[in-house]
């Protein structure tokens, strides 16, 4: 029986361009838990997510990820969905998904297209997609390779009601399977979150 995952941040601080974005951020997240990041624009939600994704180094403090896959860093066991899509406009929807599936050493399954109802758009060039459809495509990356930590930066932006429901379903399933998720959001995700971190209170 593998030990349940645990993500622990202690006294985290982040500096960008010589300015202290946040400091003294502490949280502990267990398997199956969702943490919502709240706070005004510029309060450091995205910076915290990028820091956890290994795309930035903390100015102070530590991040511990317990009971994950040995030899892999936290970043290698996480999905990060940021504001930019990481998909190529010149390639089709299915080509983009196939590329990420192969690059992330996984295989494309039929669920990846179905998760956000992209079947009908599969062979369309990404260039032709609307903003919401592109968002759905980049969120589909969550389904193509199993990663235990999901770092979502305002995942609901641009989504219609049906897609929001699909996203909720996806996150709930992920949590039920013992994963964890951190989402920066201004709106209601519609999932009962176990933790809320208010970035404004950490000057």
């Amino acid at each position, binding site marked *: 029986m593998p030990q349940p995952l645990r993500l622990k941040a202690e006294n985290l601080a982040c500096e960008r361009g010589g300015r202290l974005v946040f400091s003294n951020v502490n949280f502990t997240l267990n398997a199956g838990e969702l943490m919502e990041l709240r706070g005004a624009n510029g309060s450091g939600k995205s910076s915290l997510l990028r820091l956890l994704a290994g795309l930035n180094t903390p100015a102070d403090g530590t991040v511990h990820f317990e009971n994950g896959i040995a030899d892999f860093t936290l970043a290698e066991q996480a999905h*990060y969905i940021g504001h930019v899509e990481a998909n*190529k406009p010149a390639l089709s929807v299915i080509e983009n998904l196939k*590329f990420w599936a192969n690059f992330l050493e996984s295989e494309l399954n039929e669920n990846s297209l179905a998760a956000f109802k992209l079947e009908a758009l599969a062979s369309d060039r990404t260039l032709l997609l609307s903003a919401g459809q592109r968002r759905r495509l980049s969120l589909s990356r969550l389904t193509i390779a199993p990663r235990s930590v999901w770092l979502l930066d305002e995942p609901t932006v641009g989504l219609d009601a049906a897609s929001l429901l699909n996203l909720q379903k996806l996150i709930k399933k992920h949590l039920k399977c013992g994963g964890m998720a951190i989402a920066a959001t201004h709106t209601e995700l519609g999932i009962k979150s176990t933790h809320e971190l208010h970035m404004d209170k950490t000057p």
Partner: protein
Amino acid sequence: MTQQSIRALINRDIALARAQGGGLGAALGFILAVMVLVPLALGPDQALLQRLAPGMMWLALLLSVLLTADRMFQQDYEDGSLDVMLMGHLPFELVTLTKAIAHWLTVSLPLAIITPPLGLLLNIDTAQLPILWLSMILGSLALSLLASIGGAVTAGLRRGGLLVSLLILPLYVPVLIFGVAASTANLGPNSSTPALIMLSALTLMSLVVAPWASAAALRAYLR
């Protein structure tokens, strides 16, 4: 498993180059312009043109590759693909190496193959074509690898072209010197061998240094 990621990345970059046209067309146009304009500028002295031809062709190849360097990582940086690649299991140095090789396959290698026949516009001796092909194909790999350093350093700059030229030009000088030396084989039957060996050494050296340098530059950008 590593091969799967590398193959995916190479295939995607080739597909993108095919879909977008990319730098190859512009670079080819540049080479063609040089080849057409040099005889007009220097006059119809055929012996002079023949003597200058290898140097001019190398110069055209080198500068045309330089033209495409600033776009090597720009798109992947701007659309967040590099973020996801940094989080993959594939070492980031292998990502930059793979992208440099994809650049070689889609830009430098086709240019190195097309340039020698274009030398006919400069009255080149056809006996020189094989050695030109050999040296240019060998040297073009070094050109792509060194260009990846410049592309990485200027990934986040909108108009990085000039900066790339300034940064990479010194690194291109040895490739140019030994490339031209290898191609100018009219000193004797075996005279190009030492230069070809030096050119191979330069290519191998850039194979070792360039991926690390570009990965370090991109990491610094993503911070």
